C-alpha cells in the first residue's frame, strides 16, 4: 500500500515537499458512515504522510466533518479501516484516538474558557507532584506544568502570550486557537487535525495560525486541515483532498490545479476520473482541462498515482 512517488515527476516550485513514500502516518481505507439513509461517507480513503499538510475541502454536506470525526474517534465508521503507522486501529471515543496519537482541534476549540492556559494545555492529562504529596494527596504539579506549557508555547513560536496563568477566555480568538493547536501538538502526538482553524479569525490572526501550521509541518508533524478558505488551503497545503457528496472527488496539489479548478471539482462542475483509492496516495493529479469532465488531457502526469 505504500506509494512510490517518483521524485522527478513532482511539480516544481515547492522545495519542502514531504516524502510521500513509506507508510502513511494515518490512513483511512474505504470508510463508510451512514446516518439513517443519509450517506455521510461512501468509501472514502485517505492517506496522510509524515511532514505534510493535507487539506480537506468540500462543500457543506460533502462529508468533511464526518470524515474527520471518524478519524478523531468522535464517530465510529460503519465500515472500512483506519490505520496508524500501518497498524489497524479502532476508535470508540476521542480518547482512543488521542491515545493513538491523533489530536484534533475541533471548531469549537474544546478549551475550558474559565481555566488558565497551562491548565488547558494539560486538561485531561494533568501531572501530579512527585513524591507522597502527589501520590497520596494527589496534588498537581502546577508549577511544573506551567513551566512546560510556557516552553511548549515558545517552541511553537507563540510569543504573543506572555502570561501562562491567564484565563483562556481573556485571550483573543487567534491566541485561543494557538493554545488549542499547541495542546494538540504536544504530548507526543503523531497527527494534528485542525477543523476550520481560521473560520472565526481576522486576517492577521489567520496568518499567525497558518504560520503555526507550517511550523508544525516543518517539524515533521503531519497535519490535516479542514477549511473553506481556498487561498489559505493553497497557501499551506501540500495535497488537497476534495470531498463531494460523501465521496472523495480527488486528491490534487496546489501545483497541479488552480483554485478555480479545485472549486469546480468540489462543486461537481468538473470531475477527476480517479478518486484516490487505497494505495493511491496522489491519485488523479492532472490539471482539469477546460473540458466539461476533464477526462482527457491528463495522461502526462496520470501515471504518478498508479504506475510507479
Amino acid at each position, binding site marked *: 500500500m505504500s506509494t512510490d512517488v517518483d521524485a522527478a515527476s513532482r511539480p516544481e516550485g515547492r522545495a519542502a515537499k514531504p516524502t510521500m513514500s513509506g507508510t502513511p502516518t494515518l490512513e483511512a481505507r474505504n470508510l463508510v458512515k451512514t446516518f439513517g439513509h443519509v450517506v455521510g461517507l461512501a468509501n472514502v480513503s485517505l492517506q496522510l504522510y509524515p511532514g505534510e499538510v493535507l487539506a480537506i475541502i468540500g*462543500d457543506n454536506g460533502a462529508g468533511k466533518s464526518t470524515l474527520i470525526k471518524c478519524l478523531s474517534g*468522535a464517530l465510529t465508521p460503519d465500515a472500512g479501516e483506519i490505520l496508524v503507522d500501518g497498524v489497524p486501529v479502532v476508535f470508540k471515543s*476521542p*480518547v482512543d484516538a*488521542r491515545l493513538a496519537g491523533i489530536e*484534533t482541534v*475541533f471548531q*469549537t*476549540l*474544546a*478549551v*475550558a*474558557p*474559565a*481555566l488558565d492556559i497551562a*491548565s488547558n494545555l494539560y*486538561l*485531561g*492529562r*494533568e501531572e*501530579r507532584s512527585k513524591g507522597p504529596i502527589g501520590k497520596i*494527596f*494527589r*496534588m*498537581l504539579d*502546577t508549577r511544573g506544568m506551567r513551566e512546560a506549557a510556557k516552553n511548549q508555547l515558545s517552541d511553537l513560536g507563540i510569543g504573543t502570550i506572555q502570561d501562562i496563568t491567564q*484565563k483562556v*477566555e*481573556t*485571550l*483573543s480568538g487567534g491566541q485561543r486557537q494557538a493554545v488549542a493547536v499547541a495542546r494538540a501538538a504536544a504530548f507526543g502526538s503523531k497527527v494534528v487535525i485542525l477543523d476550520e482553524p*481560521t*473560520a472565526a*479569525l*481576522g*486576517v*492577521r*490572526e*489567520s496568518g499567525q495560525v497558518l504560520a503555526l501550521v507550517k511550523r508544525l509541518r516543518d517539524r515533521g508533524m503531519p497535519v490535516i486541515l479542514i477549511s*473553506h*478558505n*481556498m*487561498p489559505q488551503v493553497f497557501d499551506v497545503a501540500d495535497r488537497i483532498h476534495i470531498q463531494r457528496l460523501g465521496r472523495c472527488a480527488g486528491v490534487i496539489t496546489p501545483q497541479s490545479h488552480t*483554485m478555480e479548478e479545485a*472549486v469546480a471539482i*468540489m*462543486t461537481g462542475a468538473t470531475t477527476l476520473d480517479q478518486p484516490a483509492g487505497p494505495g493511491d496516495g496522489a491519485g488523479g493529479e492532472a490539471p482539469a482541462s477546460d473540458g466539461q469532465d476533464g477526462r482527457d488531457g491528463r495522461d502526462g502526469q496520470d501515471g504518478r498515482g498508479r504506475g510507479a
Partner: protein
Amino acid sequence: MTAVIEPTGQVRESETPGARLQHTLHRHPAIGPASVLVASVIAFSIANPRFLNSTNLSLLVQQVAVLATLAIGQTMIILTAGIDLSVGAAAILAQMVMAQTAANNGVPGVLAILLGIFVGALTGLLNGFLVTRIKLPPFIVTLGTLSIYTSIGLRYSNGQSVYAKAMPSALIWTGNYVNIGPYQLTTGVILMLVLFAVTSYALTRTAWGRHVYSTGDDAEAARLSGIKTGRVLLSVYLVAGVIFGLAAWILIGRVGVASTNNLTNANLDSITAVVIGGTSLFGGRGAVLGTLFGALIVQTFQSGISLAGVNSLYQVLAEGILVIVAVALDQWIRRVRR
C-alpha cells in the same frame, strides 16, 4: 466558496480602572464577597458596637456552621452548572437516620453517624444517577428528590423528634465547645472549616478539581479533552451527598434535637450563600472559599440587622438585594474578553 476574511481591527483597549477591577475580580472570585463581608462587619459594628463582642461573633459563627457546610456541597454542584434543591431534605433524612438508629435501634453512636452519612451519600448518588445516566436536568431531578427525601424522612421518623438526651454522645459531639481566646466555637464549626479546607484543596489542587471546573464550564469541551464528564458529575453529587450527611451531624450538635422541622429554608439559603459567595450559576466559575464568605455575609446581616434594632424583615430584603447584586456582578465579570 471562498470565505471572505474581514479585517477586524482588534485594538487592545487601554485598561481603565473599571476594566482592571473587572480583571482582578475575574481572577480572584473570592475578593468580591470578602470585601462585602468586611464592609458589612464594619457597618454593623458602627450601628451597634456590641456586634463585635466575642460572644456575638462566636454565636454568629456557630449559627452559620450548618448552612455553610450544606453550601459546600451546593457550591460543588453549582460549579458543574447544576443545582441542588434537595440539599435540606437530604440532610434531614440523614439526620433522622443518625438519630433514630442510635436512639431507637440501639446502634452505637459512631456507627449511626456513618449510617447517616451513608444515606446522605445515597441521596447524592441517586441525584447524580438521574442527572448523568437518565440525563435529566438537575433542577428537575432535585425538585423531585426534594419531595421524595422529605417524604421518606417524615415516613421513617413518623414525624417524631429525637432529643439530645436520648442520643449517644457521639451524635452531639459536634455541639461541644472549643474555646479559642475569648471566642467560643464548637467542634461542628471546626469540622465545617476542615471541610472547607479539604474541598478547597480538592477543587483547586487536584486533577479532579480541574475536571469539575471544566465540566461545568463547557461539558462538551471537557469531553473532547478526554474527561469522563459523566463520572465527574456523579462523583460531585456523591461527595456533595456525603457533605450533606456531615452537615446533618453538625446540625444535631447545634440544635440538640433531630427533627423534620429543622432546615426548612436550607435549600434556597444554601443557593443564596453560594451565589453571594461569587460562584456563577452558569458553572465553571467560583470557589468554595467564596461560599464561606457568602454564608458569613448572610449570617452577618441577620445578626447585624437585629442588633441594629431594625425590623428583621429588612434582613430578608437585604439578602434578596445581595443575591441580585451578586449575580449582576457575576454577569459583568463574565464579560471580560481579551
